[in-house]
């Protein structure tokens, strides 16, 4: 058989019968890729020449090998009768070839780096194809652009769209923080496809001041930032999952001011409600080195 099956089996992925039924395998065309570009002359097809895939000076790149057929498979019949036959492999969302089999083509070369744990990712399990997010023919792939990546991710993660406009949020709309700043979308080391093993380690990439260790530590802070914060966006200040003092009262109910029912209190004149609420006093909730900082007030 042809390059297609060689590529597929080499990565340990086998075509499902249902996928194979619709696949039109053909003989290799083997001609110059300029012939392909005679028809596929849209900018998108030509732009591949500006990408690493098109660096024909390196014999390992797709275009230096079998040209377009390196990725798209044998296209002999397609070249002769383009309206009747198509190339063996197309990288679109709605073709008969499944995502795993499409991805096998990409993973045939992209084995290392971020892709080496692709098969563990939720994206792989959800039958997401590489081409669902990446446009390999373009010089500037949107998903690799800091300013445009979020729009690609939001295509599926629709519910996150509202978070980007909330009262408190990360600067994702502005391209300062991207989805991949925190998430390893090709298969991460830890929970939630994060780039680090734990939530806190991921947060410390930018918020290193909160790493500590501190003389006085706050247990939930050391445990997991998401006990109090919603990193995707919140209607409350500072990405808090609930509004203080009520957030704090989910764990702290002592006598006097800690356990007070503030809903019935005087808002305007109460320094436990206005401004930063509990952190008007307990401002060092992430930890403090102050020798008298037992209650995170100094």
């Amino acid at each position, binding site marked *: 058989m042809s390059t297609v099956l060689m590529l597929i089996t080499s990565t340990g992925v086998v075509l499902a019968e249902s996928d194979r039924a619709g696949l039109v395998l053909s003989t290799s065309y083997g001609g110059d890729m300029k012939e392909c570009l005679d028809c596929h002359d849209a900018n998108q097809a030509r732009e591949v020449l500006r990408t690493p895939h098109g660096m024909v000076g390196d014999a390992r790149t797709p275009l230096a090998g079998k040209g377009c057929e390196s990725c798209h498979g044998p296209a002999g019949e397609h070249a002769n009768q383009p309206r009747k036959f198509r190339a063996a492999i197309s990288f679109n969302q709605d073709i008969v070839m499944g995502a795993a089999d499409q991805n096998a083509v990409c993973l045939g070369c992209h084995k290392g780096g971020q892709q080496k744990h692709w098969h563990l990712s939720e994206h792989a399990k959800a039958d997401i194809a590489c081409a669902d997010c990446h446009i390999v023919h373009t*010089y500037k792939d949107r998903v690799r652009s800091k300013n445009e990546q979020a729009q690609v991710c939001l295509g599926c993660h629709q519910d996150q769209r509202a978070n980007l406009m909330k009262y408190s949020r990360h600067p994702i709309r502005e391209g300062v923080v991207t989805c991949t700043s925190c998430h390893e979308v090709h298969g991460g080391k830890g929970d939630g496809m994060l780039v680090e093993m734990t939530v806190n380690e991921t947060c410390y990439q930018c918020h290193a001041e909160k790493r500590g260790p501190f*003389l006085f530590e706050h247990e939930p802070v050391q445990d997991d930032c998401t006990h109090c914060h919603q990193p995707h966006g919140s*209607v409350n200040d500072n990405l808090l999952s609930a509004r203080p003092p009520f957030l704090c009262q989910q764990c702290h*109910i002592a006598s006097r001011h800690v*356990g007070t029912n503030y809903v019935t209190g005087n808002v305007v004149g109460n320094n436990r409600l206005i401004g930063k609420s509990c952190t*008007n006093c307990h401002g060092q909730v992430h930890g403090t080195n102050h020798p008298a900082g037992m209650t995170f007030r100094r």
Partner: protein
Amino acid sequence: MNSQRKLSFGVTFIFLVLSVKTAWSQEEFGFEGNTDLPSSDFYNFIEIGVGATENANGKFGEFTQPLQSDGLFGVMAVQLSGIGNDNLHRWFLNSSTELHPELNAGLSEQGSYRMNFSYWQSVKVEMDNTLTPFAGPTRSNLQLPSGYINPDSSSGSNSSADPAFYGEKDFAVKRDTFEFGGTRYFGDHWALSVDLSSQEKEGEKATGGGQGFAGSTLLIEPVDYQHDEMTVTLEYTDKRWQWSLAGYYSEFDNENGQVSFDNPLTDEKHLVGLQQLDLYPDNEFLRISFDSGLSINDFTRLSFFADWNQAKQDDDFLPYSVGNPDYYSSFSGSPFSPLPATSLDGEVERLNARIVLSSRPTRRFNYKVEFSYKDKDSKHNAFPADYILYSGSVSKASGTTHVFDKDSELISIEGGYRFANRSRLRLGWDHEVMDRETEEVTGKFTDETEENLYWTEYHLPLLGRANIKFRVEYSQLDTDLSEERESHLHSAEPEATPEAAIPTFLTEYDRMLYKLRVDYPFTETLMASGSLDIIRDNFDNDFFGIDERDSQVLSLDLSWALSLELSITGYVIFEQVEWEQTGQQSEGNGTVVGRWQIDSDNNSESYGVLVNWQAIEDTLDLEFSTSYLDSDSSQSGKWLLNEFEPEAMPNSGTNVHRIEASANWHLNDQMDIRGRYIYERYRCDDWAWDSRNFSTIAFGWEEPNYDAHVLTLSLHYRF
């Protein structure tokens, strides 16, 4: 001209010069001269123009720097790139000031090496137009203005704060990030990478002064951080086995170890000039990590992750700013126990490991088995520490610091089966046990949790036209709390005085999660999709604290390509999170005032429409988008024992409406004229900041409501 505009114009000038040079040298880099390949289109461009804003100071997102000044500003973007004659070398350089100043550059030789450099700057405006008695240059010693009259001392009440003593201050933090990375490839299998990063963060934040009760105030916290990171990675890749070994080092430095201040709300003699707020200490972090993937055969793969890391912090403690025996002897004469060390000399080690076996033994069946282990182990011990009040007296003698460690073990098993109709069923079970150890001076105690998660997911890609995915999860957390922990907790009985509610992460619960996603193409050009996520948390809580938490998110999208020239997409998202918590209000002497229940809601609704229209073929592209978000949080509470009527806090929320319109006129193959207009309306209603509370927290900030506009016009030239 402010520094932002100077930078914008400066960078524009530099790249104008560079672009001329680059255009001239295209042939040198050989792209145009490469006769083996078809000729290419234009990939380099420069865009230059001008913009005008009205009322845009700090608007359009608090991070969007160029639009933070009213009036005219420069628009600049440039992209330069080239490919060598050998079709091995590539380089690029791009820069923009559209959203924030940034510069990126790279050089690579395919299969041999690559180098990248990036710089960007962002500014977060936390609060603008804020009034504070500490307005002025940033200092680590905040002093009150001359003649400042303390509201408490002037009239015996907190009602006489004089705004004349309050100056205006913007609280903003600027972050500059530099990154440099390089990879050298050795043959087909080996690669060595070095990545360096440096983040500088400067500015001011508002932070709590911690004086407590009537002496609580908000201060200016100076921010001057530097965070440097270095990662060295050795990677091996072959057909069957891939692994990488990485070392990561991080160093965080804070220029300001403390801020001291006079209290604007109380003039008690013993407080003046002495109270200090400790700021984040410097820290170091080192990590060695290894991860690997091994293809055992064509359908089975073994993955392994492990890292060991160490966090250290040894900043000196501040001198006691309260409780100083010499200073306070005349006030309290209380027994006083200084810490038996001058620094924490803290050190925390963590070990994380994860091993996963995944396989697809048949065309239809796949499975995964995973075991992971995480361990946090503090090498420093707990210190004896008294709880010392600002008055200098010891409120809680023989106290202790706490050191928190934990370890967890997770077993995860999942399997998937693909049916003949291409539908797919997945099932999984996760079992995690976690031990949380708390060390005090008097000893250690351990709280244990055990969580089981069962889930199933069914994906039906072709039900008629619909593509449906449904997921259900059930999880349950059981705890085995230590006697020490339980002795601090207060059961939900009305008579006793509660000391603490139970931490949410130690609260037993069961959770149901439902996720439904449907994609439905009505026609080839009209596609609808929707998702519904529902989570029900039921806390089996014998103590005060959280009882229930529910959330639901509904999202609907519609995409319609009316023609090749015109497409419309729209979305609607409704989100609701609500939870219930209980507590008990008590007097200091233990007298119970009453038990209460508070219900909270976080809600948001958002809508958006995007229209793309090629109004004149190959000549004029128009884009219009509008988005709207209405979000609020609300609380209501009631007394449980006395059957009082529920009372509600005023709602708080934000309302954002944004309109963007852009036009792109193609003058010719190389040149476009671009125009862009943005309007944003922002309304915030927050009772916490409703009034300028000079007499209560000596701080004034009004919600930043605004109607802001920006218009830009630029020339985009490709070459």
